[in-house]
């Protein structure tokens, strides 16, 4: 029998209608028509505005009859629409009173926050028609992708090696060798999967892929004339739609399929996908920003406002999303559930996540409902949740982010400790011992495992690794902000000359310092994260905040892999070594004792003398040994691993602790040696000549394995 809910009950402007379903929000294809549902608590009336694809003017506007409003939700089924060619938006009526926080303006067509496809910036960098009355347009999506039994990978967090990457920057440069019309897109990443496999990482973290506007605040550099854009994309236009300009098929509106296909293919080779998500603010900016969506739909619900009606700005970008308002909380939850269920995304990294723990007036909450909800959500139950545990309003929560047993953190303290240690600063040995163990000083007390600590030395925000060892200070002239932007606390060291040099001694030292950083990162407990391009020596000329450059400054130069083969090989082997040794990826904190009674503590500390670490404040030497019997809490067996770090400016003899009976020390890495002796493929480590002592060069790391 035919369903009766496919029969219209009303007509308007020649279109047949019936009262819709309030849930789900957004535009949903239903038998015979499309169900439109949108929330607004302070509006007085709402009109659905329908366009044919790319048409300058709507073909019909349909006011929601009063009886189609349920609570604060307008919902309506419109029958017989050509949903392949449909674009839609809303006009909202209501008070327009700045101090009260209401910005209703029915002359504006507004984007549905729940739109799954957004058109208007279909091809990256193509100038839009600025006279268009409706720039970012909602479109319908079709959930008919063939996943072929794929599901999120569910890899334990501590077993991940994360590669933070920018979709466009990865393959945009012609040197990528990717087909021209695939460069800078999801399809481009697809073509480079074999490279990611060769490198050995098992997780990619994509910098923002939600629809954003690269033309937001675009401008010409006042002196160089370079066109500067919103390249990084930390400014969301819509939270449910993948960025069309990141898809080779964006011009066909097929970005959903292209991204899903990328996820499916990455999963097939064991690579998880984490998305960098930006819920702290939106692209509507401050009082002078454009009205795109939230501001015109229900300004007071979506944004934190001062009593005078201005926007609070804890994000440093103009506005702050009112994350702990129950409506906004619902939207964030719906969004993450959608990306998990529909796109099979494995986890999320939350930009400036401390904002998600603030109340509507900006005060930090003791028990933030949004963070708790995400931690206990049934659909997100296996998703990785990673917080950038600070915000631009000064709330710094590394070590104290409300975790509910789920949340991991970008460990900014790890970054700073390692940077200081490798440049030879005194007074960081104690800190380093904590960082190497997965920062138990920050996490153990609260019962949080080592994998809470996402360890990194470099990230998109700051120097690349090559620049970290080539510059003492930032060089951000190209950003056109008089060098006022970007971090000042870089803990970097140029090794003697600022910037490029052909002095062989300095180049050698820089190469060693890079090796030291990567070696330490990959033997630390916690979860290592590498920055795209660091494995091939990418430089940004000392610019530590390249957010606005769509140019070779940001695009990966793939010739570097050839030019820096020794370095690439070093990084690759360090990753493989970590993945080969479960003792480097413990799921519980070390107890610094022999709780299994096997003759060695799970971790032991050493210095130039075995079993005697020098914890003094001017120490620059630290060594540790991991007992393979204690790997993963004694559940698996692994080799003994010894790591010695000499950050002194002189070579030093290290007395070696005796390896387990029946085994001998073999050299996996020695950053002080010249390639190819600096590192060996895991499993092919040569034996060490003297088993009792070892001369370790200045500013060098040695990694030994007992077998």
């Amino acid at each position, binding site marked *: 029998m035919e369903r009766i809910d496919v029969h219209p009950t009303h007509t308007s402007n020649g279109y047949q209608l019936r009262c819709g379903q309030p849930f789900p929000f957004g535009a949903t294809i239903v038998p015979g028509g499309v169900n439109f549902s949108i929330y607004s608590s302070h509006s007085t009336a709402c009109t659905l505005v329908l366009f044919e694809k790319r048409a300058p003017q709507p073909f019909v506007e349909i006011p929601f009859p009063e009886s189609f409003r349920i609570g604060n939700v307008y919902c309506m089924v419109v029958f017989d629409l050509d949903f392949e060619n449909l674009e839609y938006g809303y006009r909202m009526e209501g008070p327009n009173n700045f101090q009260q926080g209401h910005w209703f303006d029915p002359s504006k067509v507004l984007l549905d926050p729940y739109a799954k496809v957004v058109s208007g910036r279909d091809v990256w960098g193509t100038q839009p028609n600025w006279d268009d009355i409706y720039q970012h347009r909602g479109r319908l999506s079709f959930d008919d992708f063939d996943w072929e039994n794929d599901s999120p990978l569910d890899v334990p967090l501590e077993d991940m090696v994360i590669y933070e990457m920018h979709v466009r920057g990865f393959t945009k440069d012609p040197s990528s060798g990717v087909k021209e019309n695939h460069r800078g897109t999801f399809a481009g990443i697809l073509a480079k999967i074999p490279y990611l496999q060769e490198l050995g990482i098992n997780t990619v973290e994509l910098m923002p892929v939600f629809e954003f506007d690269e033309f937001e605040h675009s401008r010409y550099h006042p002196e160089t004339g370079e066109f500067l854009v919103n390249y990084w994309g930390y400014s969301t236009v819509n939270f449910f739609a993948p960025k069309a300009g990141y898809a*080779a098929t964006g011009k*066909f509106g097929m970005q959903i399929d292209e991204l899903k*296909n990328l996820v499916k293919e990455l999963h097939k080779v064991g690579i998880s996908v984490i998305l960098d998500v930006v819920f702290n603010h939106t692209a509507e900016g401050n009082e002078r920003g454009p009205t795109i969506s939230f501001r015109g739909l229900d300004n007071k619900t979506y944004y934190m406002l001062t009593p005078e009606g201005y926007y609070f700005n804890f994000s440093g970008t103009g506005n702050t999303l009112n994350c702990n308002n129950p409506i906004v909380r619902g939207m964030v939850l719906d969004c993450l559930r959608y990306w998990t269920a529909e796109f099979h995304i494995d986890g999320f990294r939350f930009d400036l996540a401390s904002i998600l723990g603030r109340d509507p007036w900006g005060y930090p909450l003791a028990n933030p409902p949004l963070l708790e909800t995400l931690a206990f959500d049934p659909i997100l139950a296996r998703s990785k949740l990673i917080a950038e545990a600070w915000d631009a309003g000064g709330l710094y929560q590394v070590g104290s982010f409300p975790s509910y047993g789920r949340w991991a953190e970008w460990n900014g303290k790890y970054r700073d400790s390692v940077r200081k240690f490798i440049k030879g600063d005194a007074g960081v040995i104690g800190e380093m011992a904590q960082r190497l163990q997965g920062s138990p000083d920050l996490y153990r007390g609260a019962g949080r495992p080592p994998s809470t600590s996402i360890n990194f030395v470099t990230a998109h925000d700051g120097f690349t690794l090559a620049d970290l060892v080539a510059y003492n200070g930032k060089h951000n002239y190209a950003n056109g902000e008089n060098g006022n932007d970007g971090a000042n606390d870089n803990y970097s060291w140029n090794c003697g000359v600022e910037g490029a040099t052909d002095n062989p001694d300095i180049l050698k030292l820089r190469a060693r310092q890079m090796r030291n950083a990567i070696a330490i990162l990959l033997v630390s407990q916690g979860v290592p994260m590498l920055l795209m391009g660091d494995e091939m020596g990418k430089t940004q000329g000392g610019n530590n905040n390249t957010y606005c450059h769509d140019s070779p400054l940001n695009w990966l130069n793939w010739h570097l892999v050839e030019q820096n083969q020794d370095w690439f090989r070093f990084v690759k082997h360090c990753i493989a070594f970590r993945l080969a040794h479960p003792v480097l990826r413990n799921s519980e904190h070390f107890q610094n004792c022999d709780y299994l009674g096997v003759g060695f503590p799970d971790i032991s500390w050493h210095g130039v003398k075995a079993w005697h670490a020098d914890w003094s404040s001017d120490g620059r030497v630290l060594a540790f040994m991991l007992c393979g019997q204690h790997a993963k809490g004694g559940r698996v067996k692994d080799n003994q691993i010894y790591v010695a770090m000499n950050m002194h400016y002189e070579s030093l003899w290290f007395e070696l602790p005796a390896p387990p009976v029946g085994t001998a020390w073999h050299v996996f890495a020695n950053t002080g040696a010249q390639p190819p002796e600096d590192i060996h493929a895991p499993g092919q480590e040569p034996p060490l000549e003297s088993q009792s002592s070892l001369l370790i060069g200045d500013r060098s790391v040695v990694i030994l394995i007992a077998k």
Partner: protein
Amino acid sequence: MAFSIELETINGQAKLTLIGELDGGTAPLFKEKIEAAAEANATKLVLFMDQLEYMSSAGLRVLVFAKQKMGTGVEIFLVGTQEMVNDTIEQTGLHQSFHMVDSYDFTA
């Protein structure tokens, strides 16, 4: 260019010839022919696409529909797809679900 589509059955195999531009307006015609091929219990579905100049998302969705409708036992061949159409199919991963070939022999 206007769209046209023809269905023939050769040795129990369904042959579809697509010409012109396949978009939201013409995709329903394509879908009808797929349904007809499925009703005829074709053992293979062979789509001649060398004269197909454009395929929109609607066309791609009919390809997905074809796979589901014909069932996993029926192999689907896309013959001679032009570069632009081919590109769209590849970027969205559909090429793995079909045999992409330059020519097809019905006697084999």
